[in-house]
């Protein structure tokens, strides 16, 4: 495996995290160190090994598809940072639309 080439600024943007220049300067070497550390798994022979997705393999856990009570609308909206009526309020998304 090649030397770690994590571009912290680029990845942070993918994760929708705005970093300050100080954070970027702090995280870049720290994350390079962590990436370098975890690359030790490249030494393990995993040919023919199935991936383990979970702590306990369970599959096809179904329940009846029936209508049941769920969280009350008012309760779900109680923690909203901004709302209008029964909806969450956000800045406009569509470009060119009237705000």
């Amino acid at each position, binding site marked *: 495996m090649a030397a770690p080439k*994590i571009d912290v600024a680029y990845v942070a943007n993918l994760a929708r995290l705005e970093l300050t220049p100080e954070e970027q300067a702090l995280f870049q070497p720290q994350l390079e160190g962590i990436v370098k550390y975890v690359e030790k798994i490249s030494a393990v022979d995993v040919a023919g090994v*199935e991936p383990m997705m979970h*702590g306990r393999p369970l599959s096809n856990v179904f329940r009846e598809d029936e209508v049941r009570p769920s969280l009350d609308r008012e309760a779900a909206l109680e923690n909203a940072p901004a709302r209008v009526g029964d909806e969450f309020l956000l800045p406009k998304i569509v470009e060119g639309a009237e705000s």
Partner: protein
Amino acid sequence: MELVDLGIKAAQAGLAKGEFCARDIVESVIRRYREKNGEIGAYLTFDEEHALRLADANPKSVPIAIKDLINVAGQPCTCASKILKGYVSPYDATVIRNLKANGFIPCGRCNMDEFAMGSSTENSALGVTRNPYDLTRVPGGSSGGSAAAVGGNLCIAALGSDTGGSIRQPASFCNCVGVKPSYGRVSRYGVTAFASSLDQVGPMTKSVDDAAILLKALAGRDEMDGTTPPEPVPDYPAALAGATLKGVRLGLPKEYLEVSGVDPEVKRITEEAIARCAAAGAELVEVSLPHTEYAMAVYYIIAPAEASANLARFDGVRYGHRSEMSRDVMSLYLKSRAEGFGPEVKRRIIMGTYVLSSGYYDAYYGRAQKVRTLIKRDFDRVFAKVDALITPCAPTPAFKFAELQDPLTMYLNDLFTIPSSLAGVCAASVPSGFTRDTNLPVGVQFVCGGYEETRLLQVCKAYEGTLQ
């Protein structure tokens, strides 16, 4: 002795005999909270009126302190993060419903590392928690507030959560019993997710008996969490009667006992623990789990990967912090998350996003899942030969504040707890003695196979007896 100094078993006995009622216990907890929480900081918040109201409605119940990532209706649930400051839970987590159905009530919110990421509770954005055995030292983490509340007698017992050691390591640092149940044994519904293939809620208590009582109340199938199997929950407390180490095949994994970097006092206490087990009739068997050395690396790929996906929900839209500085939706995401998350959470989100990103997925996440299979097979092979493993719980006793600055050095705290988390088996830390010079508590870890909690608790109970 105050009521708050009791464990669950003694409190239940007193309630049954009518010697006191739940309100008396809660009032005792409140007195201790007012007297001690200023210096220990075990609780982030404590709604006294809420606790008293629940106690009056359930006069035969025992109050339990709750890690601040488990939802209790009408109470804050901050995960020790600025991004959830002011959040009020709209519903009870399944573990809270289970507590209430079994004679317990939630009482107080315990501090933790932000979103359960850390090993010292220093990553809490909302408060400092000190080790009740030495106020200059950390309580461990991430369930540091729960551990300090139990170890410092600020509660009867507490709930913690464990992803890679977050119940067991603080239990070791604060002299309590901490059980990480097998994956799926306890529902995660209503518990803020960190790494979904690893997270488990578990008891943190003053005795093994108490851990058995609390685990029985917590465990079981939950329709709201598809990872909980329908397997019946054994009567753990009843199974502890006559618990013995006689004839127990106890595995000594050389990868845990011959590793460098372990504090000499932790080594001594672990060796003495092994000797006491042997004297009590356990048959010692040397075993090997050859993939142990890769567990940390696997964990620091899988856990951040899952965290980066889970924490995507904190976007400033439906709940949690929203930046005042946002002009459009993109800046709302970028700035709300930047302002809301602390440095360790940001690091892990970036790490997780990186290992899942296009071109790297196979080399990191995909490969880590395969190595995880090999780690699991190590445990399967060993548990065909032995009943339980005994290992150190954490490589050191409680360390001082700001002593570990480098993230990777901090991660090494979970060296001995991570492999069993990856394998999905059950494990516990049991108080085992104190360091000679510094007089700090040290726990020893026992590990059993998946859904072998009965055996695990029996071994822990019998071991606890060797200390008295």
